[in-house]
């Protein structure tokens, strides 16, 4: 029973991190109908920005509350700028081309980033993983019984940050003018443009928002894993992507539910079966969901109009 509770907590903790990354996939898919394959790698770039900032701050400054805030702010803002550049120079010129063209571009960017960062030329960090500085020192936050169930402080902090960001996002999408514009572009970007919505700006802002969320999630992941590596984006990105598809890509609450479900499924496989099967289970689960509900749990399969 205690073991079950512990797995439940761990699963939810990793699920919330997936959820933040998955939200980025889902928002971009919502406005552009593009699977942004490079999203995970943008996240990785953000984590390296946070890593560099934490080092620049020094040992004392980065462990303070203000220091942590600076690390997060630099990574999220830097990543937003990076996402903007990718959208402006790689995706925007292809917007009216067939969708496959943009998908191939996204895969190309993902490849260039994750393998480019493995080189050790100039400022690039090289292939080997590096220890992420302890900006939040892991301590036990809550202990139930005789260490039967342990809740770590980073689990609580990442849950709080993740929930805060999600609530903020929900308000942004459903409670503001920008959110309304975003939903209009997602519905039909040509008609939205005719109604006077600056579609280019909305799409660029969506990209910046999703990249910033990814950077935040990536930092939480790095704190949990205590390491950064150029390939982390590829793997976390793929998992988050699977989560977004399970929830129904383009559906904001669906992405969160999908991510939590995926986090739990993975945790239970690791806990009760074998950890080596974890990656296969995520994809197997995806194929299973797509077989039963081709649009994901909450998505609808729209009939194609001609």
């Amino acid at each position, binding site marked *: 029973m205690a073991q079950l509770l512990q797995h439940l907590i761990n699963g939810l903790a990793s699920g919330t991190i997936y959820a933040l990354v998955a939200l980025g996939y889902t928002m971009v898919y919502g406005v552009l109908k593009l699977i942004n394959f490079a999203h995970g790698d943008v996240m990785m770039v953000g984590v390296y920005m946070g890593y560099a900032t934490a080092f620049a701050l020094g040992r004392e400054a980065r462990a303070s509350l203000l220091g942590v805030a600076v690390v997060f702010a630099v990574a999220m803002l830097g990543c937003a700028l990076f996402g903007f550049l990718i959208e402006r120079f790689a995706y925007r010129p292809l917007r009216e081309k067939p969708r*496959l063209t943009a998908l191939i571009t996204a895969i190309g960017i993902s490849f*260039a980033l994750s*393998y480019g960062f*493995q*080189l050790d030329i100039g400022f690039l960090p090289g292939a080997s993983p590096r220890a992420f500085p302890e900006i939040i020192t892991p301590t036990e936050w809550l202990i139930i019984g005789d260490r039967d169930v342990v809740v770590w402080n980073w689990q609580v902090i990442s849950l709080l940050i993740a929930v805060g960001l999600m609530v903020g996002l929900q308000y942004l999408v459903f409670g503001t003018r920008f959110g309304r514009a975003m939903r209009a572009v997602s519905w039909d970007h040509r008609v939205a443009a005719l109604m006077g919505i600056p579609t280019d700006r909305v799409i660029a802002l969506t990209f910046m928002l999703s990249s910033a969320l990814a950077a935040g999630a990536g930092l939480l992941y790095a704190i949990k894993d205590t390491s950064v590596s150029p390939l982390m984006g590829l793997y976390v990105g793929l998992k988050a992507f*699977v989560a977004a*598809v399970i929830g129904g890509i383009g559906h904001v609450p669906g992405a969160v539910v999908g991510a939590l479900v995926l986090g739990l499924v993975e945790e239970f496989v690791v806990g009760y079966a074998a950890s*080596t099967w974890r990656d296969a289970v995520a994809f197997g689960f*995806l194929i299973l969901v*797509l077989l039963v509900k081709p649009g994901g749990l909450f998505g609808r399969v729209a009939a194609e109009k001609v």
Partner: protein
Amino acid sequence: MQTPALPVPESRPLVPPSLRGVAPVVVALPVLALFQWLLGGADFASYLLSVMGVNIILAVSLNVVNGMTGQFSIGHAGFMAVGAYISGVLSLQLKEVALSFLPVAASDQVLFMLSLLVGGAAAAACGFLVGLPSLRLRGDYLAIVTLGFGEIIRVVVQNTDSFGRALGLSGIPQASSPAMVYFWVFLVVLAARRLAGSSHGRSLWAIREDEVAAEAMGVDTTGYKVRAFVFSSFFAGIAGGLFAHFVPIINPGSFTFVRSMEIVVMVVLGGLGSTTGAIVAAIFLTLLPEGMRSLFSALGTEGSLAQRVDQIRMPIYGVLLVVLMLARPQGLFGSKELWDVLPRWLPRKRRGLA
């Protein structure tokens, strides 16, 4: 559908129509045998040629799905892995077996062919299993499912004792030879070209151009997509089987997402839908790293640079994809074939059905 009667040429054809399908194979075999004999014992040359041939098979077969049918599979290395492991394990089991009515060398080749075919069939069966559910979905979902399939295969191999887990499978008889590889290259090119001009092929082109319109015209879109998928995964399995029989060891690291992406880059670079384009791109991208390596070591500057060619290759592929999509999204050849883009004074193939 009845086609209007065409004027029949008076002259008798060189090859009777019933044998026309077999004729190229009959011509190719002695050429390949000669080629093998000329190559003799050049180890590195025959290794490089074999790698190149395997890449051509992979690129040409992936082109049937990604180019001709307009779907997007990024798990080709997964099918290659199925072929490699199934045929590798089978060859290991059959190592001691010899067919008594044949000389030893011939018997080895027969058994090798058998395990290749079994590997190819297993890959085709996987292609069918993956294709059937996912091809009902739109193109981008297929991309994810094929990617997931590739990962699942890798994890399964890593967790199975008879596949050697993460350490890999070694001691597979080195039965492959450049002649064998190029025999299969020849078969896949022949099959792909004949497919492109057939009524099956026209259905595939129709699906690529507009799936809804194709369906409205009575094309069984799911059926044709699955068939294209099975075709392509069969040859990927064969390529994997060939690969397993000339490298010293196969391990899951040879069949990762990176490998799949390499094949995708070949197809996209050559031109989506162009068989000869895929061949040219496969040859170019196999020789490019080798060329860079020898260039760097010849220059003598920084010995480390020559060793890092493999590392530098990957980001360059990524940038190459992005630049290609921005500048020339149809790839170098588009869906044209080599003879359509040759200069005017060179002999051209007549336009029309291939």
